[in-house]
């Protein structure tokens, strides 16, 4: 019974959390804690994989005698939760393995060790929960434990601000989800998911919007993403990896569970809403990432972009389902879920890579790095693999899920709705734009961090990461490659999930010759990652061999050429900001109201010339600043309610009671 194994894994994690808060903060205790987390994650991972590979396994349920007295805590393992268990624990295992090595928290382990297992356990519980109460409880544990992890380096005021904004947004999101479950329960009379499914929902539109706010704020959907680029980089690197690679996926799970499973048949405009938000999220996420020079913040903004890609797939799936087209819906949903897996793999890898760089140099700012490929060759290799995967380049995995999304977009002329007909191609263009900009951004991230000459002493003296951390990164890189060259197997693994949610599945892929993938029909489109990979490898090996054998293999080292004017100072290199300058000029003046000001002293004046760039975040200024001001004003107004006499309080309570009774009597 796999759900039992998963529950034991969660229990072990919770036990570790308690034990870690009592244990001494010694080095072996740290390694032991992460080791137990690793084993627990691998155990749950094995159980989830086993469940997914069983063909048409029935859902497994479990009822624990705590929680709400009349409900208890219900747990359930079906194909959807098994897939997300796989994602959670794959990322969890990678991050735990990395943390056993030197990449673990160097400072204040006592602030990390108790919360880390709790964080992993609560993410597993969210995925397993089968009633509204346990879901929300686990969700809150997930928020609070990750908030505590964001606050590990609490001496930095920026981190405190990040944690404050995070906990505000998280509470707001949970509030929305609480209302969503309340609404669902009101329609069916119970909080368990089984009762909700069987009941008839009232006003499913309200539930969808509440779920979108609740899950979207956790996942980082624009305009609810503002906390994400602040909070994710502030945590220790292996926790950042979990928050970006895994926690956002748990949020996606929450949305899928409510929108596809609990909330009944979709309306046509749900897809429209999701597709619009997804398109904006993609482009704004990647453009913001391009403007960053903090490596971890850049990666966090890319999470926003990838969440947009996933939501685009989900929106297309809802649009197709609502018009009674199950086969294209299955394709779009497969694309979204495959991207969930892919993003978990490469984003965890990239954050771990940035963690290795941070551990080796103490720097997150790319402008102080450079040339690390010489001193950290294996880290550079793993990071490069992640960069290629996230930039959607074949033969790696990111390309496959984007390719599937494009194929789903190409099926959308079948949709009868005019709004979708006009919207989908425009959003397709936005997806293509964000993929191309992502490639630019990762040329910048890898090029400035790992290539060129070192820009600081720390970068010059960096040393390679330790073998355990490297093993974690290289294993994730290998998974990125495997998912890219064997996409058919992943798609077939997803088939029971998709079948359960959309009522159809993509045609079986793993039986096709040469392991190609053919989403619709072979005359329409096909892709074979394995052969592309083999052809590239063979092509380059043939070229190397022929040239070395018949032409020349002589190499001489010399100074750089640079058209005859090489400058000795490393500051003459292109920096992260100068790399992004052309893109900032083309896109930034609209998206960020970017202004460049050149202060050029007159001849004879010995001041330094200055170029200053100001970027503004219009979303922050339009939505959040007025909102915060409004709340402050309202709080000021209501403040005098705290200084009333007891008589006034009693009359206030009395009036409120009468008012509510009136409402109830008029309502019924």
């Amino acid at each position, binding site marked *: 019974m796999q759900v039992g194994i998963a529950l034991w894994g969660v229990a072990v994690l919770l036990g570790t959390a308690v034990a870690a808060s009592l244990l001494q903060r010694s080095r072996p205790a740290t390694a032991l804690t992460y080791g137990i987390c690793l084993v627990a994650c691998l155990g749950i991972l094995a159980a989830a994989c086993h469940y997914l590979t069983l063909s048409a396994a029935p859902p497994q349920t479990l009822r624990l005698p705590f929680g709400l007295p009349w409900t208890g805590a219900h747990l359930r393992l079906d194909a959807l939760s098994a897939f997300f268990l796989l994602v959670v624990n794959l990322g969890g295992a990678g991050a735990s393995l990395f943390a056993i090595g030197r990449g673990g928290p160097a400072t204040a382990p006592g602030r990390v060790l108790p919360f880390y297992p709790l964080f992993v356990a609560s993410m597993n519980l969210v995925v397993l929960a089968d009633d509204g109460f346990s879901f929300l409880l686990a969700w809150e544990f997930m928020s609070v434990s990750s908030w505590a992890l964001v606050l590990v380096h609490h001496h930095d005021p920026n981190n405190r601000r990040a944690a404050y904004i995070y906990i505000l947004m998280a509470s707001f999101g949970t509030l929305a989800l609480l209302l969503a479950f309340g609404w669902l329960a009101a329609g069916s009379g119970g909080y368990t998911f089984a009762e909700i499914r069987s009941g008839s929902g009232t006003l499913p539109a309200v539930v969808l919007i509440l779920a979108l706010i609740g899950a979207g704020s956790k996942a980082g959907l624009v305009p609810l993403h503002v906390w994400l680029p602040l909070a994710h980089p502030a945590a220790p690197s292996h926790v950042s990896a979990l928050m970006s690679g895994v926690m956002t996926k748990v949020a996606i799970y929450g949305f899928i569970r409510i929108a596809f499973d609990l909330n009944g048949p979709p309306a046509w405009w749900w897809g429209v809403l999701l597709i619009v938000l997804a398109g904006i999220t993609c482009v704004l996420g990647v453009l913001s990432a391009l403007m960053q020079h903090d490596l971890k913040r850049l990666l966090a903004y890319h999470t926003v972009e990838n969440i947009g890609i996933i939501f685009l797939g989900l929106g297309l799936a809802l649009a197709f389902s609502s018009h009674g087209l199950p086969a294209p819906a299955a394709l779009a949903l497969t694309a979204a879920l495959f991207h969930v897996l892919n993003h978990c793999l490469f984003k965890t890898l990239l954050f771990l890579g940035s963690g290795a760089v941070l551990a080796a140099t103490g720097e997150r700012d790319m402008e102080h790095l450079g040339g690390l490929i010489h001193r950290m*060759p294996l880290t550079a290799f793993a990071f490069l693999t992640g960069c290629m995967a996230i930039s959607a380049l074949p033969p790696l995995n990111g390309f496959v899920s984007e390719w599937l999304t494009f194929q789903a977009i190409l099926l959308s002329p079948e949709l009868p709705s005019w709004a979708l007909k006009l919207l989908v191609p425009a959003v397709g263009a936005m997806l293509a734009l964000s993929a191309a900009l992502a490639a630019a951004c990762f040329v910048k991230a890898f090029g400035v961090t790992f290539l060129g000459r070192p820009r600081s002493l720390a970068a010059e003296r960096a040393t390679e990461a330790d073998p355990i951390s490297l093993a974690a990164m290289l294993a994730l890189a290998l998974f990125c490659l495997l998912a890219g060259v064997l996409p058919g197997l992943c798609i077939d693994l997803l088939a029971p999930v998709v079948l359960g949610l959309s009522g159809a599945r993509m045609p079986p892929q793993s039986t096709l010759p040469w392991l190609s993938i053919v989403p619709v029909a072979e005359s329409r489109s096909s892709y074979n990652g394995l052969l592309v990979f083999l052809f590239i490898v063979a092509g380059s090996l043939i070229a190397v061999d022929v040239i070395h054998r018949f032409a*020349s293999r002589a190499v001489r080292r010399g100074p750089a050429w640079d058209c005859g004017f090489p400058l000795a100072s490393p500051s003459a290199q292109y920096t992260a900001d100068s790399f992004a300058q052309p893109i900032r000029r083309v896109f930034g003046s609209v998206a960020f109201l970017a202004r460049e000001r050149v202060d050029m002293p007159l001849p004879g004046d010995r001041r330094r010339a200055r170029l200053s760039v100001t970027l503004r975040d219009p979303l922050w200024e339009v939505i959040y600043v007025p909102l915060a001001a409004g709340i402050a004003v309202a709080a000021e107004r209501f403040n005098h309610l705290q200084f009333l006499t007891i008589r006034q309080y009693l009359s206030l309570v009395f009036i409120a009671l009468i008012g509510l009774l009136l409402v109830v009597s008029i309502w019924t």
Partner: protein
Amino acid sequence: MDLIVAPLLQGVQMFAVLALAPLLLGYTRKVKARALRRAGPPMLQPYRDLLRLMRKEVVLAHNASWLFRTAPYMIFAATWVAAALVPTFATALPFSWVGDLIAIIALLGSARFFLALAGMDIGTSFGGIGSSREMLFASLAEPAMIMIVFTVALVAGSTQLSSLAAFMQDNVDLRVSLGLAAAALVIVAIAENARIPVDNPATHLELTMVHEAMVLEYSGRHLAMLELAAAVKLLLYVSLIACIFVPWGLAAPGSGPTAYATGAMLYLGKLLAGGFLLVLFETSIAKMRVFRVPQFLGAALMLGLLATLLLFVSRSF
């Protein structure tokens, strides 16, 4: 019979693109020189250049990394695989289903990714300038290309180039959307191949250079690989335009040797015509400032988007 002939034809295509690419380059240079009333180098000069470069030793900068040394081969291989997937003289060759048009574009994207990284590896300012601008151009050219793919895929119901070409052969009709897509594809092809007015392939030591700035530090066999990859890419784009918009003469699978011979002859003719038109365009226009290029490419993106929207509105446009 088919078991031997089909892979053989695939092999012929793979090596034909490799063998013809420098010739196309030499031909365009010759025509361009003649258009400017110069004698110009002989048409076979690119082959000689490549052989000479291959035989020379490589001079590497002191701080060149493994990425700098492996990138030329990867760029070459990715471009070669992409070019081998575009139908040249025949459709539905045995490996034509390995990747569709989107995969071909993405393979070229992989090649560009490595080229841009290689430009940043030595840490010189020219390399950075080239990489940064190349990625800016790519960030506009790639979505335009995807829009073109959408347009032709919506017309033909396939992103598979062989099916696409077969459909275009059988259904000859003038469509507004295809016209817009063709114009957009020409703009993208010019930008992707670093031709005038976007970039000047003949330039060196010029502040506006893009492609040449990235490969500035390369020498010897590495440079030969990059030059060959650039030549293959030019051939790829000419073949791509020919295969989508003038697909006549492409041999169908299982047809006789005469069909293949005709296909090959027509393909050569298409290459000559394509190269001639390219030169005609190049000699009649001046090079643009770097920040005019986004407008040029934005026009391609808008044309592609317009074509796709028209098709979403009605499939008969």
